[in-house]
């Protein structure tokens, strides 16, 4: 407990209410946009971009001033919200949530700039801003109540975005999305309250919703396991983990392009982040107990997602199922519960957001031109749109996990971690990598290669300047992170190490180590510094500033 608080106290807070501002700016922006007359769509867009970009700038500022060596929570703020219940407005960020915050901060203004809604821009931008506020809130919340509020509140704008601006079967998809997710969170609420109640007895002080204090509570094993299951159900629906994934293909396919990008980029990460922050942190013993189940489900998700994606005729649905597969990897890494696995999982969360977001963006562009997503009707697009084909290639290869691009770094870390923890899962998961290559390359070949067989495919327009800039903006981090991931990893790793120490302290089981305690090729490859700190059981070295 003391190490967290000590870390918080020593972390400099040049900007005392940064996180509150970060969450409030898009929320206020949403209200402001709602008040602008709908006769001025351009003003709506500019205002929305202004507020969203301000939040993005604050997120970048956060990244800039983030203390790399500190594994605890930084920029912590804490005030009472509802006195009688022990609920507080507690925000904080650490290495685990930092890049997700940055992703949320930057992806939204990007989407606002890159994509224009087909109708009703005013409510569209208002909902997007509210969604950004909610997503940022989820990632920085240190209070279980605040977390739950933000976790639930993102359902409303997403529901409207899918239902009002989506395609064909959008009402059904929106309804399914909302009810599925709400079902998961409904039981999580009971779990939250049960945790607070039992922890209050264990700690002895009054009830509190502060997760830092709740993490120190000693719960009975079975109680902790039951409550973990309630939490895990909600996150499993959100991630989604097989077999609770059925809402995802419909939601992704019927959502408008912006909705799909945000859904894939950020919304799915709410679940995986939840597993790390609340599953592993609050219930270490229960996580260890449930790890085999989740490792299995992760592998199943990888294989299932890949196999079903191969069979898809709709390009967007194919990408949606690829999401299921990628998130299976993240779950795998998380429940490997060692430094490589968890770090890889967190990094892959960001990577998936970038690459799958870019994929959805490109599919959206194809749909806008051709008004179809059927692979059978798209062929030979490379002829007339070589630049788009090239961009698609890069993004697709990142999704497959080609070395040199960001996807490889994350996948490698995850597989490394899983292999160390439990060999056979990694072996089977590696097959999933091959399958990913299979369906993506095959889809690419059918869509882009060959001769165009219809007039529309022949006259397919290539990337326009604005679109090119948009996708280019995503390509840059895809390539940079693939070649030089060190800045990212060196900020994630300390917090992961703190988390693993916490788990080790609570369960008495050290995270799985590599075959040797010396530096592995991981460090040599990524140039992480020396730092053979014997007190840390984890393998990845700590980086000195």
């Amino acid at each position: 407990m003391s190490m967290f608080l000590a870390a918080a106290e020593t972390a400099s807070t040049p900007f005392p209410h940064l996180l509150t501002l970060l969450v409030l700016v898009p929320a206020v922006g949403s209200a402001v946009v709602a008040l602008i007359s709908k006769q001025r769509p351009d003003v709506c867009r500019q205002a929305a971009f202004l507020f969203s970009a301000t939040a993005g700038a604050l997120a970048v500022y956060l990244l800039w001033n983030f203390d790399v060596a500190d594994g605890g929570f930084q920029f912590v703020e804490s005030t009472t919200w509802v006195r009688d219940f022990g609920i507080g407005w507690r925000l904080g960020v650490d290495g685990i949530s930092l890049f997700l915050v940055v992703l949320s901060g930057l992806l939204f203004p990007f989407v606002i700039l890159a994509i224009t809604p087909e109708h009703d821009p005013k409510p569209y931008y208002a909902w997007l801003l509210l969604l950004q506020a909610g997503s940022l809130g989820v990632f920085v919340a240190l209070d279980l109540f605040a977390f739950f509020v933000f976790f639930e509140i993102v359902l409303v704008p997403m529901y409207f975005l899918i239902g009002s601006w989506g395609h064909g079967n959008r009402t059904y998809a929106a309804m399914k999305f909302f009810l599925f997710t709400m079902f998961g969170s409904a039981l999580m609420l009971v779990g939250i309250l049960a945790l607070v109640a039992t922890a209050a007895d264990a700690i002895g002080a009054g009830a509190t919703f502060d997760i830092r204090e709740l993490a120190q509570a000693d719960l009975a094993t079975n109680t902790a396991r039951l409550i973990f299951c309630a939490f895990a159900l909600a996150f499993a629906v959100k991630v989604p983990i097989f077999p609770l994934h059925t809402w995802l293909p419909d939601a992704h396919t019927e959502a408008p392009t912006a909705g799909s990008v945000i859904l894939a980029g950020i919304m799915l990460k709410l679940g995986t982040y939840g597993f790390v922050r609340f599953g592993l942190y609050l219930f270490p013993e229960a996580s260890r107990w449930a790890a085999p189940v989740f490792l299995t489900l992760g592998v199943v998700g990888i294989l299932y997602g890949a196999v079903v994606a191969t069979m898809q005729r709709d390009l967007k649905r194919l990408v949606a199922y690829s999401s299921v597969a990628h998130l299976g990897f993240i779950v795998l890494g998380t429940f490997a519960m060692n430094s490589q696995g968890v770090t890889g999982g967190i990094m892959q969360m960001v990577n998936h957001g970038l690459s799958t977001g870019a994929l959805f963006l490109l599919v959206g562009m194809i749909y806008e031109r051709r008004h179809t997503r059927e692979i059978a009707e798209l062929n030979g697009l490379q002829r007339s749109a070589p630049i788009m084909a090239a961009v698609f290639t890069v993004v697709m290869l990142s999704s497959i996990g080609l070395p040199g691009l960001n996807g490889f770094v994350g996948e490698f870390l995850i597989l490394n971690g899983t292999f160390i923890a439990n060999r056979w899962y990694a072996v089977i998961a590696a097959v999933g990598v091959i399958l990913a290559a299979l369906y993506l390359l095959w889809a690419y070949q059918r869509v882009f290669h060959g001769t165009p067989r219809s007039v529309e495919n022949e006259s397919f327009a290539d990337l326009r300047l604005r679109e090119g800039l948009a996708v280019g903006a995503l390509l840059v981090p895809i390539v940079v992170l693939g070649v030089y991931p060190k800045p990212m990893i060196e900020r994630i790793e300390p917090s992961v190490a703190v988390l693993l120490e916490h788990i080790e302290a609570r369960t008495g089981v050290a995270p799985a180590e590599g075959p040797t305690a010396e530096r592995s090729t991981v460090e040599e490859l990524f140039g992480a510094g020396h730092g053979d700190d014997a007190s840390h059981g984890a393998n990845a070295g700590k980086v000195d500033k």
Partner: protein
Amino acid sequence: MSLLASLAAQAAQPVTPVTSVLVETPSVDWWGLLPLILLAAPAMVLLHASSLLRRVFRGFYATASVGIAGTAAAFAIVQWFRVTDLDGGRGPYTTVASAYTVDGYSVFITVVLCVAVIVSSLVADGYLRREGLDGAETYALLLLSASGGVVMASANDLIVLFLGLEVLSIPVYVLAASHLRRSASQEAGFKYFILGAFASAFFLYGIALVYGATGSTNLGTIRQTLQDDPFVDGGALLLAGAAFLLVGFGFKVAAVPFHAWTPDVYQGAPSPVVSYMASGVKAAGFAGLVRVFDVTLAGQVRDWQPIVVGLAVLTLLGGSVLAVAQTDVKRMLAYSSISHAGFLLVGVAVASPEGAAAVLFYLAAYGLMIGGTFAVVTAVAGPGEQATGIDAFRGLGRRQPMLALGFTVLLFAQTGVPLTSGFFAKFGVIKAAVDGGWYWLAAVAMLSAVVGAFVYLRLVVAMFMVEDIDPHHGDGDVVAATPAPVAMPAALTLALAATVVATLVVGFLPGLLTDLAGDAVPVVLATLP
């Protein structure tokens, strides 16, 4: 000596003429009774005035009604400070020979009832003019019914409780039947009356049995008697009485299986009256329920708790599941009201101070939500309340976005989406259940909330996600007949705006209301004669 013989002997004695006898009347704290008097007396004055005044300005009666209820609420708030300040102030007390209590709990419910009357009056203003039923009767009856509710919430005696129940109910029977041109309204009033009188009779039978078992009708005395001797009279008479009381209360608050009247009455009665029924009558009913079961029969909790838990589960599941099949919006809201009653019953069933505080919060939050909801339904239903199907709401988001947005906020509040008062209301009840160890009950409640979400979402879909407009194929076919724009009288808009704002404010800052609800509860337990 037999009873008859003794009575005969008494009658046979010579009667001494009585010149002057000092009859000891109970002390009456008129300040404590002031809110009650301020509701009932001006209501009767209003009735008289309506027959004497020839010309009144538009909305005079509604204004009068709002003013009366507002004044009563203001005095109640003043009383709140008097009553909850345990050190310097008066503290909770009973008056009129300990038949009537004035404590934080009763003051809280008084304010809730006054707010319910205010919202219903504002909605009724435009409605009555539209339907051609303008007059003082509706408002006077609303005020009188509210005064009965105040009595019911402040009762410290079963007789007084019964009186309050009757004064609460009878005006509402009349109000339900008050739309003279709609036979649905008359039928609703008739059904409500028959079933309501039936339930009141059950209730009364229960009171008689409890009186027989404990020897007194005073709640404080009953509590004391039961604490001294928990197995009084073998227990059977008391339990039977409690069961009958539960039947009576169950009808009033629309618990399954006593709910059969709710959909028909909600559908047939005039919408402003339904607004009052869902907010005010329910509040008074639950106030009485908590006072009798959670406070007075607290010692017998192991006896009645399983039954109330069972009622809660049935009500939760029945309300939300049956709501799914409805196509008429008023019936849908009736079933959703039943499921909300289920949540409230969970708060009653856990029999703890947190549960009671949660019930108070929920009643206040729900009263506002449902008041605003029925304001929208009143407006959309149109003259004669013809348009109460889901189709009436189709495309409303496009035609009147502010109305649709306000309605959406209220619907999401009923679903339990965070940052609305409804979320925190459910949160409070679930927390009380979990703190009491009722994990499975909390899970059932949350699941019923998810099922109920479908019902509300369907309305939101109809309003915003009209499917005949596909953006990719240009503007779709124009909807066959664009419905007439919904008329929004000023008073109704005010009511709707106020309830939406209140819902959001309480959603963001629930502490404002939880502090009040929490402060109201410990005071209840302190009332003893």
